[in-house]
C-alpha cells in the first residue's frame, strides 16, 4: 500500500526531492536542463529564482504535459523540424548554384564588353593625341579644356552602345581630384558613390582590369540603388595622364531571376514541410489509433467490462496486436467467469446446505427442547441424556453457524453493511453480554477510553461479533484476572484493544490463533464451547471492513487483541491509535519472562517508549537482527504467514526460559505471541508506512486485508 503510494503516478509532474544539490558537475547540470528539469520543478537555488522559474513554467506546463503524453504530437513536430532543416539546406545549395550560374554568364559577357570598351578608350586617346599633338596640356599641368571635353565625349560614346545594359564612369586616378578632371558618369549614375573604394585602390596600384560587386547609386535620390557588377581599369587620356574607367553592369535582371527562384523554392519547401508533417500525422495516426484503442479497451477491461474487444481489420502487425489483445481478453473473461461460476456455485451450495441442514435441525432442536423441558418426569439416565442432547445441540448449532459463516466468506458472499456507529455502544453491549460469564470466572471487565465518541463506518453486527469473541476469549483465558477493553480514535482509524492477564501466548502463536480449528494445546480439556472458528471469523470480519485484527501476547503475561478499523469504509488504514503491545507488557516494564527485573546488558529495549516514531521504529528493526538475547534463534517464517491468512509473522523468540506457570496450557481457542514484543507498537499514531513494513519485519501482527 505504502510502497505504491510512494511512487508518483504517471503523468504527474512530481518534484524530485532526492536530487543531490551540491557537487553536480556542469555537464550533469546541463543534462538536467535538457531532461526538462527546469520545467518540471528541479530548479534549485534561491527562492527568488525558483519563484521566477515557477512563474515562467506555469503557462508551459500544459504544453509540456501534452508533449510528454502525445506521441503523435512528438512525431509530427520532430518530422516538421527535421524536414524544415533538410529543405533549408537544400534551398541554400540550390540558390547558390543558380546564382553562380547566372552570374558566371553575366560576368563573362560583361568582361568582354568592358575589355572592348577599354580598348576603344585607349584607341580614342591615341587618336586624340595624333590629332592634337602636344598642345593638349597647359604648361601649368592642368588639363586643358579639350581633354575635359574629350573625356565627356568618351563617356557618352562608350555608354551609347549599351543603353540600360551598362553605364560608364570615369574617375580621376589616385587622389588628384583637384586636377580638374572631375568624375563623369553616364545614365545619371553617381560616380563616386557607386564605385567601391577598395576597387579604386586596387585599380590605382595595378595596371590590369579588376572587378567587384557593388550597388549603383543614382544622382537622383528617389531612384534608389540596384546591384551591379563593376569592372574598371586605369587608362591614359590623350595627355598621357591616367584615369580610371569603369563599366557598371546592373544585375537587376539576374536579381529578379534569383528572387523568383528563391520564391519558388520557399513555396515548394513550405509545401513539402507541411505535407511531410501531414503525412507523418497520418502515418502515426495509423499506428497510434489502435494503440490508443487498446489502451482504452484495456482500461475498460480492468474496470470490469469484460466483453470489451478491439476492432481488428486486416492482417498487419496492428491487427496481430489486436488479435492477441482480444485473445488475452477472452481468456481473462473465461477465467473470471469460471471463477465467478465457481464462487456462485459454492455460494449456492452453502445456501442450500444451510437450508437443507437447518430445517431438520430446527425440528430436532425443538423436539430436544420439549424433551428437555419434560426431563424431570424421566428416570435419571434418560433425563441426563436429554440434557446432553440439548447441550450438544447447542454446540452443533453454533458450529454449523460458524461453518456456514466461514464458507460465506470463502465464497466471497459476505457483504458489508457499513454505517456510522459509535463503538462505545457496541462495547457496552458486548461487555454487558459477557458479564454473566465474567462473574462466573471472577473477572472484572474494565472499559477505558470511552469518554469521547468513537465513531466509525462499520457493520455493527460484525463488529459486535468480533468484540464479543475477543471479550469472551479474554474472560475465558484470563484466569480470573481483570480484562481491560480500551477504545481509541486517531487519524483515520479507530481501535478497540482487549487485554487480559492470563496465560498469554507462546512464541509464534499470535498468528496461529487465527487459524481455523487451531488449539494451543490439543490435549487440554475443553471447558468452554468454542467452535474453534471464532477468531477466524473475526479476522474475516475485520478484513471485510478493510481493518486489522492483530494479536500480541507473552507467556504468562497475558495477551492483547486489537481490532483496528478505518474511520470511513473506503479509507485505507495507515496505523492504529492503540499500540499492539500494551504499555504494561513485561518488556515495557523492564521485566524478563520470569517476572524479574532485568539487569544491565543491552536491556535498553525496555525503555523504548511504546509510541515510537517511524524513525525509531526503523531503528528498532535495524537492531533486531543482532538478537536481543542470548539463545535467540534465527527468525523463521511462520508457514501460516501467508497472504490469505492475513498474518505476517516472523517468530523471533529467544525465550527459552519460561515461567513455570506459563508453560502448561497456554490458551485454547486463542493463541500465541512472541514474548518479547515481536509486535509492532508503533503501528498506531505514526501515520506512516511504518506499520505494514514493521509488521513484516518483527511483528506477530496480523493484518486484515
Amino acid at each position, binding site marked *: 500500500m505504502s510502497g505504491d503510494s510512494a511512487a508518483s503516478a504517471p503523468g504527474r509532474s512530481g518534484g524530485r526531492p532526492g536530487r543531490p544539490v551540491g557537487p553536480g558537475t556542469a555537464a550533469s547540470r546541463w543534462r538536467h536542463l535538457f531532461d526538462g528539469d527546469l520545467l518540471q520543478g528541479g530548479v534549485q537555488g534561491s527562492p527568488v529564482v525558483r519563484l521566477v522559474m515557477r512563474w515562467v513554467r506555469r503557462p508551459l506546463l500544459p504544453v509540456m504535459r501534452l508533449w510528454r503524453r502525445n506521441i503523435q504530437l512528438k512525431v509530427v513536430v520532430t518530422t516538421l523540424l527535421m524536414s524544415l532543416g533538410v529543405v533549408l539546406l537544400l534551398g541554400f545549395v540550390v540558390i547558390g548554384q543558380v546564382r553562380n550560374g547566372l552570374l558566371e554568364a553575366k560576368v563573362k559577357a560583361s568582361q568582354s564588353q568592358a575589355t572592348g570598351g577599354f580598348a576603344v578608350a585607349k584607341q580614342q586617346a591615341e587618336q586624340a593625341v595624333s590629332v592634337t599633338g602636344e598642345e593638349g596640356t597647359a604648361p601649368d599641368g592642368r588639363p586643358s579644356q579639350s581633354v575635359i571635353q574629350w573625356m565627356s565625349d568618351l563617356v557618352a560614346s562608350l555608354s551609347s552602345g549599351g543603353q540600360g545594359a551598362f553605364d560608364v564612369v570615369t574617375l580621376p586616378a589616385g587622389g588628384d581630384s583637384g586636377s580638374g578632371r572631375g568624375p563623369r558618369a553616364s545614365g545619371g549614375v553617381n560616380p563616386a558613390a557607386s564605385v567601391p573604394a577598395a576597387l579604386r585602390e586596387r585599380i590605382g596600384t595595378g595596371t590590369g582590369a579588376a572587378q567587384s560587386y557593388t550597388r549603383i547609386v543614382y544622382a537622383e535620390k528617389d531612384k534608389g540603388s540596384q546591384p551591379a557588377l563593376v569592372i574598371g581599369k586605369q587608362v591614359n587620356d590623350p595627355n598621357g595622364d591616367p584615369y580610371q574607367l569603369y563599366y557598371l553592369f546592373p544585375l537587376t535582371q539576374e536579381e529578379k531571376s534569383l528572387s523568383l527562384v528563391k520564391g519558388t523554392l520557399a513555396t515548394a519547401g513550405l509545401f513539402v514541410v507541411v505535407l511531410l508533417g501531414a503525412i507523418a500525422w497520418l502515418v502515426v495516426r495509423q499506428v497510434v489509433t489502435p494503440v490508443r484503442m487498446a489502451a482504452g479497451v484495456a482500461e475498460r477491461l480492468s474496470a470490469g467490462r469484460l466483453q470489451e474487444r478491439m476492432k481488428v481489420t486486416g492482417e498487419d502487425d496492428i491487427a496481430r496486436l489486436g488479435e492477441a489483445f482480444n485473445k488475452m481478453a477472452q481468456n481473462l473473461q473465461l477465467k473470471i467467469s469460471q471463477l465467478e461460476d465457481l464462487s456462485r456455485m459454492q455460494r449456492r451450495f452453502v*445456501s442450500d446446505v444451510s437450508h437443507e441442514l437447518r*430445517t431438520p435441525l*430446527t*425440528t430436532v*432442536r425443538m423436539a430436544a*427442547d420439549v424433551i428437555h423441558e419434560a426431563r424431570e418426569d424421566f428416570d435419571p439416565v434418560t433425563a441426563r441424556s436429554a440434557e446432553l442432547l440439548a447441550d450438544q445441540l447447542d454446540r452443533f448449532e453454533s458450529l454449523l453457524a460458524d461453518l456456514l459463516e466461514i464458507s460465506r466468506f470463502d465464497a466471497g458472499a459476505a457483504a458489508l453493511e457499513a*454505517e456510522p456507529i459509535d463503538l462505545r455502544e457496541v462495547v457496552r*453491549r458486548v461487555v454487558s453480554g459477557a458479564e454473566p460469564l465474567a462473574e462466573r470466572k471472577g473477572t472484572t471487565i474494565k472499559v477505558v477510553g470511552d469518554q469521547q465518541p468513537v465513531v466509525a463506518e462499520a457493520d455493527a453486527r460484525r463488529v459486535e461479533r468480533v468484540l464479543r469473541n475477543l471479550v469472551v476469549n479474554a474472560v475465558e483465558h484470563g484466569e480470573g484476572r481483570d480484562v481491560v477493553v480500551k477504545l481509541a480514535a486517531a487519524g483515520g482509524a479507530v481501535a478497540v484493544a482487549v487485554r487480559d492477564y492470563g496465560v498469554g501466548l507462546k512464541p509464534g502463536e499470535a498468528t496461529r490463533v487465527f487459524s481455523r480449528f487451531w488449539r494451543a494445546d490439543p490435549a487440554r480439556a475443553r471447558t468452554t464451547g468454542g467452535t474453534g472458528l471464532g477468531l477466524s471469523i473475526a479476522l474475516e470480519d475485520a478484513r471485510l471492513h478493510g481493518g486489522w485484527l492483530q494479536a500480541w501476547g507473552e507467556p504468562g503475561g497475558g495477551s492483547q487483541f486489537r481490532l483496528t478499523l478505518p474511520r470511513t469504509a473506503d479509507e485505507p488504514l495507515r496505523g492504529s491509535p492503540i499500540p499492539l503491545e500494551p504499555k504494561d507488557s513485561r518488556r515495557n516494564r523492564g521485566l524478563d519472562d520470569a517476572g524479574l527485573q532485568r539487569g544491565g546488558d543491552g536491556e535498553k529495549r525496555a525503555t523504548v517508549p511504546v509510541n515510537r516514531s517511524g524513525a525509531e521504529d526503523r531503528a528498532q528493526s535495524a537492531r533486531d537482527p543482532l538478537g536481543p538475547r542470548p539463545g535467540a534463534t534465527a527468525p523463521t517464517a511462520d508457514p501460516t504467514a501467508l497472504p490469505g491468512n492475513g498474518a505476517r509473522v516472523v517468530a523471533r523468540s529467544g525465550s527459552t526460559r519460561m515461567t513455570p506457570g506459563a508453560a502448561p496450557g497456554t490458551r485454547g481457542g486463542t493463541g500465541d505471541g512472541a514474548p518479547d514484543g515481536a509486535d509492532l507498537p508503533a503501528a498506531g499514531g505514526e501515520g506512516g508506512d511504518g506499520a505494514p513494513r514493521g509488521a513484516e519485519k518483527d511483528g506477530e501482527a496480523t493484518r486484515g486485508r
Partner: protein
Amino acid sequence: MKGRVLVVDDDSALAEMLGIVLRGEGFEPSFVADGDKALAAFRETKPDLVLLDLMLPGRDGIEVCRLIRAESGVPIVMLTAKSDTVDVVVGLESGADDYIVKPFKPKELVARIRARLRRSEEPAPEQLAIGDLVIDVAGHSVKRDGQSIALTPLEFDLLVALARKPWQVFTREVLLEQVWGYRHAADTRLVNVHVQRLRSKVEKDPEKPEIVVTVRGVGYKAGPS
C-alpha cells in the same frame, strides 16, 4: 388471548413439531404446506398471526407474504434458513414484520409470536401528532388532513413509539426493544427496512423525510410537528 396461528411450511416434520410447541403454549395452529394454497387458507382461517417459511413449493414465501400483506395487516413472522442480508431484507420488504432464523429454540419462537400478538391489544385512548399527521392510538388510525393512511400494526406501533416522545432520538436498539419486543440487541436491519416502508406510506417525499427523521450515526426521531 387470541391465538390462531397459520403455519405455512412444506416440511411436515417441522410443521408437526411447530404444532406441538404452539399447542403446548395455548395457540391454535393450522397448517398449509403449499404456497399456492396459502392465501386460500389464510382467508379461510383468518389467523391472528402467520408463520411463513420462505422456501416453499409452488409460490415462494416472498410472494405469499406480499399477497397476504396486500389484503391484511396481520403480523407475519418469517421462518428463514438464510440469514443472508438479501433474503432477510427482501422478506422484510415484502411485508413481513419480523423474522426468525432456523434453527431456533421453541421459547424464542413463542416469545416472538407473543410480542407480535401483544401489539394488537391494549388500546389506550390517546391522540398524538407527528409532523402534519394525527394519530388516534385507540382507533388505530393515522390521518393527514382528514385522509386516513393505512398502516400495518407494526408500522403503526413504530410511528406511535416515535410520536410519543418527539424530543427523543431513538437508537435502532431501543426501537427493537420497544416495538418488536426484543430483549437483546438483534438485527437492526429490521428497523431500517420498516422505517423505509413506513416512510413510503406517510412521507410526502420519502427521499426527504419529514415525519421520521434520520439522526446520522444515532437513529431516528419524530419530525417537528
